């Protein structure tokens, strides 16, 4: 019984860490326009829309985060192993170092991506570089710390046998996948194209025509994150938190039933509930918003 309580308590902490990590990850990728549709930010100057958006998308979010979190966890592991530093401190130091490395990556990526656009008249704004990069580092630190912490808990207390830097890499990739699937939609459709009416996707003919003006003055990446924090970031956090929580909850509670098969049946039922919920959401959206055309046949 005590073991179960400890496992569930750890799981709650892991779920909370994952929720924070997801939200920080999405906002960080919005700061740097690493989110989809980063191709639009790259395309914009080519169709005459010069902008002040930070642009560091030289690799996808999942890979970027996989290595950010793996390096944070690996440095933390090394510090704990070699110098017997308390794991909390070791992970904090590891996350700080990897966040600074991430800042170097962001700076060189921004300079590199925009240098290639000189012929389209896109300047490199040093004030943007100096104000946005620290925000990127700060958010990357929060995400790396949270992910390496819950990977450590997963390994040390729940008992997942993979070494925790490998777990941090896998969870980093999954966090990036979640941020890319969920948060990017809010950034790509709603924020970069706020001039289109609410309630429609972006027409292909409008590609690249991102908004240049902000609420006050010319828009930059920090304005973008201020918008995405209302919906995209929290939803990404909820998605990642649910992933961690639901998968482990059904495992911890039901693994002892039917010699392990209880956890599998519970997982299958949870997936079915999600599918049914998705169908209800689909029906609600169809009845509320559409149809947009009359049937001709």
């Amino acid at each position, binding site marked *: 019984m005590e073991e179960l309580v400890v496992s569930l308590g750890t799981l709650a902490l892991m779920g909370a860490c994952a929720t924070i990590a997801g939200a920080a990850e999405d906002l960080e990728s919005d700061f740097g326009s690493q989110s989809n549709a980063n191709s639009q930010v790259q395309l914009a100057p080519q169709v005459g829309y010069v902008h002040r958006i930070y642009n560091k998308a030289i690799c996808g979010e999942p890979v970027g985060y996989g290595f950010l979190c793996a390096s944070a966890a690996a440095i933390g592991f090394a510090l704990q192993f070699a110098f017997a530093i308390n794991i909390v401190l070791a992970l904090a130091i590891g996350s700080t170092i990897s966040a600074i490395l991430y800042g170097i990556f962001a700076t060189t990526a921004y300079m590199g991506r925009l240098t290639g656009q000189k012929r389209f008249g896109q300047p490199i704004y040093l004030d943007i570089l100096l104000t946005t990069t620290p925000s990127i580092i700060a958010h990357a630190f929060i995400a790396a710390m949270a992910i390496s912490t819950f990977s450590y808990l997963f390994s040390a207390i729940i008992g997942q046998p993979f070494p925790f830097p490998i777990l941090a890499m896998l969870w980093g990739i999954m966090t990036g996948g979640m941020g890319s699937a969920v948060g990017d939609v809010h950034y790509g459709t709603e924020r970069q194209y706020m001039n289109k009416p609410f309630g429609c*996707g972006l027409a292909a003919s409008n590609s690249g025509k991102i908004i240049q003006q902000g609420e006050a003055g010319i828009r930059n990446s920090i304005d973008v994150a201020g918008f995405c924090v209302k919906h995209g970031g929290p939803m990404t956090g909820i998605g990642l938190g649910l992933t961690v929580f639901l998968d482990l909850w059904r495992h911890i509670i039901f693994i002892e039933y039917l010699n*392990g098969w209880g956890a599998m049946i519970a997982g299958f039922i949870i997936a079915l509930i999600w599918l049914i919920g998705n169908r209800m959401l689909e029906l609600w959206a169809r009845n509320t918003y559409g149809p947009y055309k009359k049937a001709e046949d």
Partner: protein
Amino acid sequence: MVDPITLLIMVLAIGIGGLLVSIGVHFVPVGGAPAAMAQATGIGTGTTMLAASAGFLGLISAGLVMEEMMIGKIEYASFVAAVGDGTLFSPAGIVANIGGIAMILAAGIIGAMLMMVILGGVSNILYVYGLGVPLVSAKVKYDPITGDRQDLYVTRGTEGHGTPTVALVSAVIGGILGGFGGSLIYLVFLAGGFSVAAAAIGAIGIFFVNSVLASYNITGTIEGFHDPKFKRWPRAFVASAIASIIIGVWVAAIIYMGVA
């Protein structure tokens, strides 16, 4: 010394695992950047990383269940012994321990399924409430599963948005195949005497090889099994079969020489 028939079965198992990953990727509704602008149906992540995200949760679940077997929390003593002495993939070992093998594969499948439904489901909440668009596909006139009319709900200038029921079911099928393949490969590595860390990294590597091959075949976006691009799967099947068997032979060589 591992006997040749066991080694052959291990090569075949890695081949089958790789093929399942590759075919599974074709089922995943990948929208990439167009999906992130609600310009195309699917989930807004790239092909490889979307499939990998699901497969990795399966791998983590399979690893956790394997550990619970090792510590005796669930009773699969002969299976654990067979993994330990490398006889799991001999013909007799497979027959005797089919229950344990099924358990690990099921753990991989369920983990990957859960990741897929959450990825699709949470992003759909954002599509509906954050963007105000219905979930719809432009590749088919009627949803093959629910029978709902699709074309009337597509907003102007786009090719659909969100992950409608048919695409989410397809994603779950993709998750099932990817999770099965990934956990099978992990099990082969473990039974071959690799450490847990080496087995995890090996499984991740083979997973990536096959999902990258499949994403080259897909070129951009795909909505699932109802998409015309899905018919291209035989090409990926051939490529992944060759790649996985070659990797399988290398793995078998490492196991044979006992350097794992």
